[in-house]
């Protein structure tokens, strides 16, 4: 440690800088008192909503990483494919008024098509692009995954056009409840509730089913699992299926929250969700969920809480800055994450 003097100083400087910004900013904002309680509540609510979506995306990263030790760089774009497929169902349903009058079957139809598409594409990418790299070490698999990411984005751009399409927003989505004086948007409740439900199902699948057990075994030690008679290929396909399903749901929700789809929409949430997965401890399913919610909260509350206080104009523009700073801080200072001690030993 003593040898790393200068570098250590720099890293400590970084930590102290970030902590200073957070502390000074928070105090400053609270003293200024520019935001009302209702506004803070809105920030938190939005943070939880977007966080639940990040959590679902992060699950895809963490499961694939657990099983294959591969950063599925294209996972964000799988989310995008789900959002697009959902759009092509949602738009006609909305135009005909079906989505407004029959929310439940409408949403089910959108989600089913989105999940089917994203899962199919996830499985295709696995079969075509990732499987040949199963035993390859070094940077080649990651570079291939970057290629897959661009290929998917540009395929969708070419096939469906580069314009931003606005997602339908039926009236029931804009409804809101009043809970002890705070305004709770209905769409937020829907997204968070369904996300929690789906993640619970996923958790049970991984913990309670035979296939889930096999998956955990492969994540623990692939070779030993193979020797025990587990079909690793099947497990990988299963993992990508689960990730694809979660991505499809997340894509639809993300599009409903931001009310738009375009071919590059998956990239940034993808990278952020990877950060969330690392934050929670990569390979850990509860960790990915926690990391997602945490990232969503920090990103939503952060600009107003930290940056407004130190006098930065238009802090909401720097939302991604906060998310990426968090990502980098985690990668540098705690690559094992909060819940991921096991994987950390393997990385070291």
């Amino acid at each position: 440690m003593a040898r790393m003097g200068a570098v250590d100083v720099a890293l400590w400087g970084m930590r102290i800088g970030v902590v200073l910004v957070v502390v000074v900013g928070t105090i400053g904002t609270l003293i200024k008192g520019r935001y009302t309680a209702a506004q803070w509540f809105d920030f938190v609510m939005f943070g939880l909503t977007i966080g639940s979506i990040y959590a679902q995306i992060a699950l895809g990263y963490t499961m694939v990483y657990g099983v294959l030790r591969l950063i599925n760089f294209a996972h964000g774009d799988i989310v995008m494919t789900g959002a697009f497929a959902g759009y092509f169902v949602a738009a006609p349903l909305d135009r005909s008024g079906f989505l407004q009058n029959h929310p439940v079957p409408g949403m089910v139809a959108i989600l089913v098509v989105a999940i089917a598409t994203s899962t199919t594409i996830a499985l295709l990418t696995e079969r075509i692009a990732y499987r040949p790299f199963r035993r390859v070490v070094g940077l080649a698999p990651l570079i291939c995954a970057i290629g897959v990411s661009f290929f998917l984005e540009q395929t969708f751009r070419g096939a469906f056009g580069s314009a931003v399409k606005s997602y339908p927003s039926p009236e029931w989505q804009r409804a809101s409840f009043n809970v002890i004086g705070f305004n709770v948007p209905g769409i937020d409740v829907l997204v968070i509730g369904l996300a929690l439900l789906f993640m619970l199902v996923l958790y049970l699948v991984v913990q309670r089913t035979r296939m889930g057990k096999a998956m955990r075994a492969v994540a623990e030690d692939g070779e030993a699992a193979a020797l025990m008679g587990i079909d690793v290929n099947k497990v990988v396909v299963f993992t990508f299926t689960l990730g694809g399903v979660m991505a499809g749901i997340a894509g639809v929700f993300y599009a409903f929250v931001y009310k738009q789809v375009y071919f590059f929409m998956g990239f940034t949430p993808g990278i952020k969700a990877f950060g969330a997965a690392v934050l929670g401890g990569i390979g850990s399913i509860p960790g990915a969920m926690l990391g997602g919610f945490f990232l969503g909260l920090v990103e939503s509350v952060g600009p107003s809480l930290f940056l407004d206080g130190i006098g930065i104009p238009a802090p909401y523009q720097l939302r991604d800055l906060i998310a990426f700073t968090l990502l980098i801080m985690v990668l540098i200072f705690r690559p094992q994450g909060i819940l991921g001690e096991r994987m950390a030993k393997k990385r070291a």
Partner: protein
Amino acid sequence: MSGVHTPPGLAAPIHPILRRAVLTGLAFGAGAVHLTVVGVVLMLHQRWIVVGTLSLGEATLLAIAAGAGAMAAANAGTAAGARIMLGLLAGAVAAAPLAALAVLIDLVSLRAIFIALSPDLLAMLTLGLGPATGIALLIAGGAGAGLLGAALQQSPRAVIRAVLPGATAVVVAGVFQELIQLMLQQYEGVVNDVRAFLYSWEGLNPAGAITIFAVTALLGEAVGLRRRRRPAHAPPRDPRRARMMRAGIALLVLAVLPAFAGSYIGQVLMLVGLYILMGMGLNLEIGLAGLLDLGFVAFFAVGAYTTALLTTESAHALLHLSYWLAMPVAVLLSILVGVLFGLPVLGVRGDYLAVATLGLGEIVRVIVQSDFAAPLLGGAQGILEIPKPRIGPYVLGSPVALFYVTLAAAGVAAFVAWRLENSRLGRAWMALRDDEDVAQALGINLIQCKLLAYGLGAAFAGLAGSIFATMLTSVYPSSFQLLISINVLALIIVGGMGSLPGVVLGAVALIGLPELLREFGEYRYLFYGAVLIVMMRLRPEGLWPSDVRQRELHARDETLALDAGSDPLPVQPR
């Protein structure tokens, strides 16, 4: 599709072979459908190879069918005649999904969802003959192309040696007719007469195409014969020297071409030059030191913005330096930023490093775009009115003049990169790339080594950014997207990681070619994505690998074959 006759004695084993041919055909057919649905085919259809006869789009589809045929023929273990029939089958099968797509377009309009599936496309696929005849012709065309592909694959080398260069020459002469005609028009007499014979006003004539094919085919044959006639006991030519010669000739052409070919080529080559500069920089990081840096565009941005701030005539100016003073400052500042950039990620390895650097790059972009930094950096409006560099009274305003600035910079940078590669530091980088722990155990100062890689890599990108700023005379945050990092990554992957001539080759192929095919536009990124996947799968060492790298990768294949688990590489074993 039942055109394949089963020879009586081969009834049992032919079934899997047939299946294989069908599957090959389907895979190529899926590729063709993909290209059609994303709109590449129709876009390529706008450009003639031979006027009125063959468009680039049609040629692409035919080439896909021919590829299916060749592959089906290469795979099969049957008699030559049967193989060629397999090629025919595969070609027809490859055309079948497209035919199905054409039927679909004819029945329902899918344009509301798939923007490329237009009536124009249907007309192109069916040659404007209506669905029934057109689709029959489409499949027949696929079968014919498959047959040709298989036949070519099966034919003796002498034939291949003639046909491939011939076909390539026709495609090049047809596709780039505008540029070639412009170039040839400058000369009177014989040259212009030849041009008038080969080309009509719109493009290549059928007669011209046949002539070019015949001449190139004969040339290919002659070269091949001469090679073969060399006495067997003559010492084999040193492949390295031959490659150096080729590189030298290519560079000479690159250097002299713009002076004759006008400002458009000059502009394209200048862009190529900038990417060569960046490629050499990233090559130090990825190719030599093994640090996958996806935030590389940040250094390019630093170079551009520094130059802008120091030279602009607008209100954003910090100083009013001449370009030649601003450029070294920009480079120095890029080095500084590179080191600062590298500091936090020193301890991050492999794939985590890629994501961390990507995050750093995005942070730079977010800050540059924000209102927070707008008073200094101009926000989304950017910085305007950057003057062109001048030497004495001469303003280097034309693209050709700036190209020579780029060329000079690239020359200096290439020399530096080449010397670095073989220096003590270069060796240390390579050791670092191969195994960080072992390198450290051998006494290599990891911190110094990595920071130098980031800093020097950044210097190249900063230099490129500096020239870029004066080329555009303005800088905007939107010019510094992640896409740039990916472009540079793709070009060094294509050329070959760690290989200097590879960088040049990659930049010409990935930046220059799409720029010449202007309508290619945004489709180039689709192509880059595909290139990254395909290269990693088929030729990870690149098209022009460095000698060291090639030896390593091939040795690695052997060890991998022996024991995948014990490979001593830095990133997770698996």
